[in-house]
């Protein structure tokens, strides 16, 4: 968390000619784009355009039939989820995937699991260096709790929280891994205006304070235009546009896709 002020840099992740099919159904065909360091990239498109599939490919839930993923200079044909996590890719889900029985604090602590180094037996005994390490991780987590302003729900089981707060906890868990690339799948879905504003502020602050690169899927065009540096537009599993928000907004294909013309 010691990044200097953000400045969009070189390519952090590149997907190249990705195609993904489930049985005979093509979810993604020949998608290529890149995510640059420290930017906020929005992936937009009508329902069923393949946006979530794209995120799932990036963090290894789906394995594409064709194409390559280049992340931090290393090229591979597919990711595996826990490798992606270990390499600094964290994510949130469209339908919140929190550990409902656990408290906010414990949920965010799970985000630290990969950062924990002490061995199994020390952990089992909860003693010595393990205890010290636990305290250090707890401190990081407390800073995140402070950052997201969720102190009041620290000990509350997340299953009991309202939707908007669950989304925030999920973001907190992703942040706990101190990711380089943060994938947010519809972080503002189902939120009211005020919750959306809060979430926008947190996303911008994360990007700004920690220099985290963010790729997000969002439906609210206002939000997308406001916070993203670049926009990739998918439609029926194909990429139809890629550029700055104002460029994308003026793109005829995008307008057609959103108005349902030409298909």
């Amino acid at each position, binding site marked *: 968390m010691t990044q200097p002020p953000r400045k969009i840099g070189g390519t952090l992740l590149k997907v190249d000619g990705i195609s993904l099919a489930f049985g005979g159904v093509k979810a993604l065909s020949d998608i290529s784009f890149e995510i640059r360091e420290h930017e906020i990239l929005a992936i937009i498109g009508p329902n069923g355009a393949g946006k979530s599939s794209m995120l799932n490919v990036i*963090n290894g*839930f789906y394995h594409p039939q064709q194409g390559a993923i280049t992340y931090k200079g290393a090229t591979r044909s597919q990711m595996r*989820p*826990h490798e*992606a*996590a*270990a390499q600094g890719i*964290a*994510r949130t*889900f469209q339908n919140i*995937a*929190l*550990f*409902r*029985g*656990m408290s906010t604090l*414990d949920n965010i*602590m*799970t*985000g630290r*699991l*990969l950062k*924990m180094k002490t061995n*199994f037996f020390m*952990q*089992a005994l*909860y003693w010595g260096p*393990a205890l010290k390490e*636990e305290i250090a991780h707890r401190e990081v987590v407390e800073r995140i709790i402070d950052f997201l302003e969720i102190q009041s729900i620290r000990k509350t089981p997340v299953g009991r929280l309202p939707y908007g707060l669950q989304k925030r906890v999920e973001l907190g*868990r*992703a942040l706990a*891994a101190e990711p380089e690339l943060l994938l947010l799948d519809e972080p503002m879905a189902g939120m009211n205006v005020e919750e959306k504003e809060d979430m926008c502020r947190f996303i911008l602050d994360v990007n700004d304070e920690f220099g985290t690169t963010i790729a997000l899927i969002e439906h609210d065009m206002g939000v997308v235009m406001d916070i993203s540096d670049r926009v990739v537009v998918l439609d029926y599993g194909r990429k139809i546009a890629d550029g700055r928000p104002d460029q994308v907004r003026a793109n005829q294909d995008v307008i057609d896709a959103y108005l349902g013309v030409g298909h």
Partner: protein
Amino acid sequence: MADLFFFLEVLIGGLLSGVLYSLVALGFVLIYKASGVFNFAQGAMVLLAGLTFVRLTQILGSEHPWDGMFVLALAITFAVMIALAFAVERVVLRPLVNQAQIIMFMATIGLTFFLEGAAQGVWGSQVHRLNLGVSELPIIIGDVLLPPLDLVAAAAAAAMVAGLAVFFSRTRIGRALRAVADDHQAALSVGIPLQSIWVVVWSVAGIVALFAGLVWGAKLGVQFSLTLVALKALPVLILGGFTSIPGAIIGGLIIGASEKLAEVFIGPLVGGAIENWFPYMLALVFLLFRPQGLFGEKIIKRV
């Protein structure tokens, strides 16, 4: 007065055997919590552990309990149970990841027959005596007779449960286990390697099975009927809830105590031998009124 002592003796005896039911139930709960799989093979694992151990002591030539060869046999059995966990993860769980629960359940039934067959195929099917070196002379307090083996088993089980509780609630792996139990996908996304977690869980369940195998083996002799012990764990689970470690303990105690009390005090009135079905009746009644068990999580589906 004598009646009171008799009652106490039955009650304590029941509670002590209840501890042993708890042990088996615990194995179920661990795996169910971490993977949502009802592991039908838990009983077979008890048999495998007991049989492997007792045969190893014979092969290695252990003279008396707790000599060097006895400990070596214990260590090897320990290793076998952990190897089993690795094998199960690799051969059964990994290929079936993301399949429906019922399919996983069927797979554990298959595993049951495999383990039972393999254990008896390798080690034979005779009944073996197992001596843990615990005196068989009952301890007498007042007029109450207490079998020492049960006491030792109860104490050891208590220690084991306390250790597991700390492990689950306080450690990183414990937290990871709970995370996996809660939401597989989310657990993957924070970088929890599901496979390793399954290995850990099955290993712990294997160790619990080993422990149960030793104690039950010492009580009943190591033989095929050890697998039936698993059936006794069912009412315990229904009572305690499938997801609760304390539930497994309390459930075991209740089942143990009530079946013995029922046998002694109600049995004669209805012609005896109710010990065998009483726990199931109790579980049935429980299902009607509190299907999630004493401590199980309430099943609330959000719409």
